[in-house]
């Protein structure tokens, strides 16, 4: 028999731990666990927030929920991956993916969505679902259905502050920062610029907007293009330092949607807060109740919000039919 050289690292110090540290040690670890789970939820939440922002943007510009958003973001992330794997820098891939998102959003609006806008709500929902399925299959054919790793531009180690682990990596901080910046930019766009105002007007009332000389068609295209760009960003942030495969955005579609509804589909700030709340709640559910209940928890949150406060936490719109 081969000699067991394998005394686990750290085993020597931790073996007697129960005796020395006793209850205090266990309490400290319990606190640390909660901190870890919560902070992990924060970084997951940033991702849901990014996705929710994209949904909010399209909702504000066309009153459509884009169920294809996840597939679109996935697709542009694969474009970035192809560039990075061919030797370009992460940031080239990042920029190209965002631009590709912009273009893809505009194309999808022009070629597909334009024809169902203003029609029955159902038709738009079905069309975006169709796009969702088709794009995912197309990506699998073009890029393959295997796991690929997607690099991150920043580190993936958590911080250690005086013996307390802070379960956030530099890349997580980048993701959270990027989401906050995008949110502020969107708030500014909608609140302070004429373009933003026209986009909102076009969404609420196309006819009146046209009578006021607003180029409604262009506003809708712009709305979709911007939203798809934010969607691409969310795809990149989810992928960063993790695995991608054609269906990697599937869960995010649901969690991002719930986050957007939680915050109020009209509100960028709501989307971000909703995303963070979702991230932390789901992380806690996963860590303390079980990973199989995460989707169910999302359902419970959604139903509660829709029934108790259908306008969401942050929507300004007075009346909303849900």
């Amino acid at each position, binding site marked *: 028999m081969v000699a067991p050289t394998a005394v686990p690292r750290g085993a020597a110090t931790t073996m007697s731990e129960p005796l020395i540290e006793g209850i205090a040690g266990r309490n400290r670890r319990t606190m640390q666990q909660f901190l870890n789970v919560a902070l992990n939820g924060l970084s997951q939440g940033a991702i849901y927030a990014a996705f929710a922002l994209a949904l909010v943007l399209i*909702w504000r510009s066309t009153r*459509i*929920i884009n*169920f294809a958003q996840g597939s679109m973001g996935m697709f542009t992330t694969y474009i970035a991956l192809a560039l990075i794997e061919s030797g370009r820098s992460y940031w080239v891939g990042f920029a190209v993916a965002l631009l590709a998102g912009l273009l893809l959003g505009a194309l999808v609006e022009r070629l*597909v969505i334009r*024809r*169902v806008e203003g*029609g*029955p*709500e*159902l*038709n*738009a*929902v*079905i*069309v975006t*679902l*169709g*796009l*969702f*399925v*088709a*794009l*995912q*299959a*197309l990506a*699998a*054919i073009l890029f393959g*259905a295997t796991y690929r790793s997607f690099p991150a531009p920043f580190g993936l180690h958590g911080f250690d502050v005086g013996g307390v682990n802070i379960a956030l990596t530099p890349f997580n901080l980048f993701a959270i920062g990027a989401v906050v910046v995008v949110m502020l930019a969107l708030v500014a766009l909608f609140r302070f610029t004429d373009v933003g105002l026209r986009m909102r007007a076009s969404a609420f009332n196309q006819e009146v907007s046209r009578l006021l000389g607003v180029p409604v068609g262009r506003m809708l295209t712009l709305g979709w293009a911007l939203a798809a760009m934010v969607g691409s960003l969310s795809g990149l942030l989810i992928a960063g330092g993790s695995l991608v495969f054609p269906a990697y955005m*599937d*869960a995010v*579609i*649901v969690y991002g*949607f*719930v986050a957007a*509804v939680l915050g109020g589909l009209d509100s960028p700030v709501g989307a971000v807060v909703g995303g963070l709340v979702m991230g932390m709640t789901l992380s806690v559910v996963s860590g303390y109740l*079980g990973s*199989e*209940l*995460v*989707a*169910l*928890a*999302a*359902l*419970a949150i*959604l*139903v509660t919000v*829709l*029934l108790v406060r*259908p306008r969401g936490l942050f929507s300004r719109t007075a009346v909303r*039919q*849900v």
Partner: protein
Amino acid sequence: MVSLVAGVRRRLPASTLGRNLLLVLAALVVVVLLLELTDPFRNSQLATMSYYAIAAAGLTVLTGLNGQISLGHGALMAVGAYAMGLLLNTGVVPFPLAMLAAAAVTAVVGVVVGAAAARLHGPYLAGATLALAIGVPGLAIHFDGVFGGEQGLQISSPRPPDWFADVIYFLFANEAGSAKYFAYIGWLTLLAVLLLLSNLVASRYGRVWRAIRDDEVAAELAGVPLGRLRVLAFVVSAACAGLAGAVLGIVVRLAAPSGFTIVLSLSLLTAVVVGGLGSLGGALLGSALLVFLPPAVTGLGMQAGLTGVQAAQLAPLAYGVVLVTVMLLAPGGAMGIARALWHARPRRRFAQQPANTHRMDEEPSTTDATEPGGRT
């Protein structure tokens, strides 16, 4: 003249029932011929088609007739399949009773889901039911003691009884395997569902559901209890999904979370949309597509030189493309196209009626004004 019309109207429900019964009898003959003239593999495909069609018929009542979308019907089928499995595995419940019970259990779930769904519209409803589809399978894993967890609940499907084999052999000189037996169970259930639903569609409920779909406000002003009728539509639809799940349980002999993913819900929606929203015939057609399209598309892909792995992706690709294309070019689906062709042929007068009807609502009085014949 007026009284004659009214008389015809009064007799209509009765004749609908009669006509539907006749249709079902005819359909029965067709089904038997279909199952007896095809090989065991086609039999098994038809068995699969039957449960898709049962669920799609229920969904078409909900979505096509009442305008409520559901991306959660896969989860409702799961409820039916698990209920079926648990009942059959007791070994004492005969399968027809188990099927009814599975439908009833799912209908009860439908009351709960429907009550929540009745307050939601369009994208909100879509998102909520999507969350349902993704969340419910987690229950089967959480309570794995009862539901068998991830690897599923094996179901002891009924074996073809001797009399069945004897009858089939006596009438058609065919051997009766389990594929054939399951196909008969599925199709008889399907015919019963279609008969019930088509009567329901033609009934007062059907008309009110359509009214709600077309103009909710007007329906409410006319005193229709919107909420209750919406929930009712959901319950009917859920019962069908439960029944479909029960048939699936028998045919697949397993209920597992991986069998009820969002893909199933989206497939059902595809069937309903492609066949023609709101038409039971369309649901049937769409279900056929779900079963027969993937092998055909994959085969084409292989012939075109794709690898097996790539060709397999063509089926979902085709689903997606078909969904989008149908919505853009022929929102009425296959049945819509068929109907348009049918109407276009014999009577030219109506052929040029433009589809652009919603604009007329904006100045409805114009229509009256230009048709002064109304008074004479």
